[in-house]
């Protein structure tokens, strides 16, 4: 990559800008910018800050604020915010910290958490939950993947636990494509009163307001962190280690409490966190958005190291810093809050109506940029997209002849890394602090939190299936939405809004860009049809191994927030009562492409992946809610990796129940045995219901045109017996053996 | 007339009864498995480097000793406290 340099009197600055961008900037400024100003443009024009590669595609999402009454803030804001009634609002956002975590997993993951907490905090609400969707190379036999896995989780645990924010859910996928490019995405949910949210806009409207910096001190760390995220990892990256920062969760906790208390004074008129792009991003966004100007005095800023240049101060990405816009008559009251918590602060400038951002170091004017120039739309770089040729071959790959015993296959699947118990991970997370966690890790498909003071509950789920997306990014992204929504629905919640984190390869490669473009189209189409507002998103490009040019499998990670009204409407995963019916809701198709069955048993990536039928999805969801209204569902788990037998197994564990399944005439005759057992067709659920309600349920299903079959009943002995498999002997699974295989895969690898 | 600055290096270690799981883990799970059989033991602890203004090294040591005891910088139930080294802070 050609990295041009620009010169100032003393400093030669490398900027990651194209020739066109450089000319464009000179035009905007009407002169040659100085080194500090170049540094600022470099940051603002990086992919990470400007989305220059992705904006045109992201425009396909329906405008959430305009089209949904309860959406208060959408894409472009620091977090998506929705009104949930009773005067409360929920903010949520998902972020990626992939490149730093691949180099230094502990601090990379920890600062990722730090960053996402700040994004929620600057909406004026209290962060109340974290979720972590992660992707690594397979663990077995790979010490590097084990090292990354261990320390990413420890980084998230230590930071989340110290700040007292519970990690209530997450997801982890293992695939070879993530070996050199692990994906660490982190999500945060915040809860607060709507009036507090209204006190924390990210624009400064009022000339005369003070700009106050609070939190950590400014040092030389992370300079060029955002440009680092916008390049692929290479050997050079090892030397980039200084670009990874060290977080301070204790300081963050003080910042959370003092920020919330400051917001409650009513004197805050703007709030922004200093994340990627540091002071540059924060101040220019505040003034540009608000059509005002600002004068900043660098000498007022508390620095960690002596002799920092203006370039270094404006570009520093030191952690744990917040910028407040404060009403003049309330300045002392706000500063008193900071004094109480002993957080560092400095009044660094004032807003004015000049529409220019002026920065002084001592008496010297070091930055003089029209505010609009920094936040105006960075010219889009049109990218070419091309469907990879190799996909055709992959899609028609045939599943080999069934040679193994079906029982053996199921034992292998329950023990596989992508399916096995993730308790090793979530035991390290305090998932109960805040006393809101009502459905905890392991008890449901989503984490469910109570909202004290209301009869409402929040459900949240994250994830995607990168193997499905690899074969068909359009259908795969839709499938990810079906699954994330299915997770909250399985706990009784109605999906309210979505945010996404698009992790893809190098956008300059047409094949990689095609995956991105298709995935976004899939999400946009699905959300529009199913009426789910897209209130935020993030794009992480360049997740690719430069040496081998292998990109990660596409991972458009989705997060869904859902709402349950009334405690009696919460549904959980574990089977409850011997003698009850087991029903499979939704149609099973011959869709083994990208399945765990293919990869675990045959080391195969191809085949026919699951497709989404929006009409069927809609009717299935409506059907479930009708059953919920009548309290006919005793347990619910959505079917995903490994197929429905795995789903049934997982539901048996907690209450030590077993199942007798009879599959005679349950399925389409054209389906092979392995297709019906292991297909990962999306939009299906396993539910438990009482025998007396069976007829009623069938009637409702027929009325709603939903495919429901009774596949068996619950028993009290610890086994799963499956009869009625055509041309094959019955399957007999020992649940104790299943539980052991499920429980010990990860501990056996990680606990040496 | 105290005009010099000294550096007092201190280490805090767990008493044997309180065990040292960090040291044990490094020895058992890392060194032994990677073939470093010549290493017979590993102990972990906390290291503090304390900068003291005093008239001489002895006084510096005394101040640090008092501080660590008075303020419970080390926990006398579970930890041992050792001054490793006192040196002059070079200008």
């Amino acid at each position: 990559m050609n990295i041009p340099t620009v010169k100032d009197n003393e400093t030669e600055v490398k900027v990651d800008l194209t020739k066109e961008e450089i000319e464009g900037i000179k035009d905007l400024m009407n002169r040659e910018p100085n080194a500090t100003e170049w540094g600022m443009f470099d940051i603002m024009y990086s992919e990470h800050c400007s989305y220059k590669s992705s904006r045109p595609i992201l425009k396909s999402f329906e405008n959430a604020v305009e089209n949904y009454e309860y959406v208060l803030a959408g894409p472009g804001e620091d977090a998506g915010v929705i009104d949930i009634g009773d005067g409360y609002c929920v903010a949520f956002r998902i972020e990626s910290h992939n490149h730093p975590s691949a180099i230094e997993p502990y601090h990379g993951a920890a600062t990722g958490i730090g960053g996402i907490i700040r994004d929620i905090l600057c909406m004026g609400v209290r962060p109340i939950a974290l979720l972590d969707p992660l992707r690594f190379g397979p663990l077995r036999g790979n010490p590097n993947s084990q090292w990354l896995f261990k320390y990413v989780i420890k980084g998230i645990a230590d930071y989340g636990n110290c700040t007292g924010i519970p990690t209530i859910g997450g997801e982890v996928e293992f695939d070879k494509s993530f070996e050199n490019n692990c994906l660490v995405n982190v999500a945060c949910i915040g809860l607060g009163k709507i009036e507090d949210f209204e006190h924390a806009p990210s624009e400064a409207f009022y000339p005369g307001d003070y700009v106050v910096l609070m939190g950590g001190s400014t040092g030389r760390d992370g300079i060029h962190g955002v440009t680092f995220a916008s390049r692929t990892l290479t050997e050079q990256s090892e030397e980039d280690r200084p670009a990874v920062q060290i977080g301070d969760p204790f300081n963050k906790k003080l910042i959370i409490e003092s920020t919330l208390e400051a917001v409650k004074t009513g004197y805050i008129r703007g709030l922004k966190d200093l994340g990627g792009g540091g002071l540059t991003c924060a101040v220019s966004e505040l003034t540009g958005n608000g059509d005002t100007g600002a004068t900043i005095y660098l000498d007022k800023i508390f620095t960690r190291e002596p002799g920092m240049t203006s370039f270094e101060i404006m570009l520093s990405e030191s952690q744990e810093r917040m910028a407040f816009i404060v009403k003049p008559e309330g300045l002392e009251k706000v500063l008193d809050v900071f004094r109480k918590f002993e957080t560092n602060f400095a009044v660094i400038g004032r807003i004015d109506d000049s529409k220019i951002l002026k920065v002084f170091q001592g008496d010297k004017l070091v930055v003089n940029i029209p505010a609009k120039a920094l936040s105006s739309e960075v010219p889009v770089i049109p990218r070419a997209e091309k469907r990879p040729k190799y996909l055709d071959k992959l899609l028609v790959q045939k599943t080999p002849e069934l040679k193994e015993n079906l029982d053996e296959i199921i034992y292998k699947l329950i023990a596989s890394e992508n399916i096995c118990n993730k308790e090793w991970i979530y035991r390290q997370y305090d998932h109960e602090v805040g006393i809101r966690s009502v459905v905890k890790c392991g008890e449901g498909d989503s984490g469910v939190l109570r909202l004290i003071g209301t009869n409402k509950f929040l459900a949240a789920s994250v994830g995607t299936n990168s193997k499905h997306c690899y074969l068909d990014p359009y259908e795969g992204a839709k499938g990810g939405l079906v699954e994330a929504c299915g997770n909250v629905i399985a706990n009784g919640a109605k999906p309210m809004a979505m945010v996404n984190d698009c992790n893809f390869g190098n956008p300059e490669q047409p094949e990689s860009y095609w995956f991105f473009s298709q995935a976004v189209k899939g999400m946009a189409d699905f959300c529009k049809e199913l009426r789910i507002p897209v209130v935020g998103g993030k794009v992480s490009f360049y997740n690719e191994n430069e040496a081998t040019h292998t990109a990660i499998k596409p991972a458009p990670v989705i997060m869904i927030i859902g709402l349950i009204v009334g405690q009696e409407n919460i549904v959980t995963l574990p089977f409850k009562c011997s003698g009850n019916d087991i029903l499979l809701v939704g149609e099973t198709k011959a869709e083994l492409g990208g399945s765990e069955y293919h990869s675990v048993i045959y080391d195969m990536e191809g085949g026919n992946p699951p497709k989404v039928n929006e009409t069927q999805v809609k009717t299935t969801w409506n059907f479930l809610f009708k059953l919920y209204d009548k309290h006919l569902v005793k347990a619910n788990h959505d079917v995903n990796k490994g197929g429905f037998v795995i789903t049934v197994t997982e539901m048996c564990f907690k209450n030590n129940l077993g199942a007798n399944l009879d599959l005679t005439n349950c399925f389409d005759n054209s389906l092979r045995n392995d297709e019906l057992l292991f297909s990962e067709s999306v939009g299906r659920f396993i539910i438990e219901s009482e025998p007396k309600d069976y007829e009623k349920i069938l009637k409702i299903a027929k009325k709603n045109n939903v495919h429901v079959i009774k596949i068996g009943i619950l028993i009290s002995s610890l086994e799963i017996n499956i009869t009625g498999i055509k041309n094959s002997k019955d399957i007999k699974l020992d649940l104790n053996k299943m539980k052991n295989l499920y429980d010990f895969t990860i501990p056996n690898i990680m606990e040496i | 007339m105290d005009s010099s600055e000294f550096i007092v290096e201190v280490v805090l270690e767990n008493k044997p009864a309180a065990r040292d799981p960090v040291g044990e883990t490094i020895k058992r799970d890392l060194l032994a498995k990677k073939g470093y059989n010549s290493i017979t033991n590993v102990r972990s602890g906390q290291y503090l480097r304390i900068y003291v203004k005093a008239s001489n090294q002895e006084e510096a040591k005394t101040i640090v000793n008092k501080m660590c005891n008075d303020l419970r910088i080390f926990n006398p139930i579970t930890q041992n406290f050792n001054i490793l080294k006192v040196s002059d802070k070079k200008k």
Partner: protein
Amino acid sequence: MPIKIAVVQFPGSNCDLDAVHVLNEVIGVECSLVWHNNFKEAEFDGVILPGGFSFGDYLRAGIIAAHSPAIEQARIMLKDGRPLIGICNGFQILTEAQFLPGALLQNESLKFICKWVNIKVENNKTAFTNRMKLNDILDIPIAHGEGRYFTDNLKELEENDQIVFRYTNQKGEITKEANPNGSMNNIAGVCNLEQNCLGLMPHPERASEEILSPNGTFYGKLFFQSMIDFIQKRL
């Protein structure tokens, strides 16, 4: 005069609001969150030191908070016989302040553990356990990285009846498997000689409401109800 309880908030306390909620909404007693520098013992009948990471757990969990003026105020309450409970980080602070014997060290597994466990009631005469029955098995959650209890005078503790809770399995057996962090003798909580001060690693404020418990129990309430009974008897 209505009973007033304080939850002392240190920089880094996390479970402070949780305790305030339980006292106010579940037990129905006036409970306030008090910033550590502003804590005045004369205003309160009982005090809770909550869980969290006071001062980031820097140097050692609880050591810096132990030097706070709030602890001097608490010492007066202690001498006066009023009830004082330290939960998790609060327990760590109480041992560093030497209100309670022993110390809390890093978990044996070197990992943070968050899970529901069982503890057995070994002493039901303290200010916080008078509503419990001896040998009752309670289910209650833990969430800590430094919960391994250690003391250099175990004999004295046993003779003086200062061991209040031990980790057990569901059947009440004190086993190694039931010990989540390697605590000496499975000790989960201890009290002072006068039995008005209790420290424990598990979180009763997380086990006071049925809706939060995986088993639908709410043993946590007993701790706080005992405290109220104790205060009322003294008045």
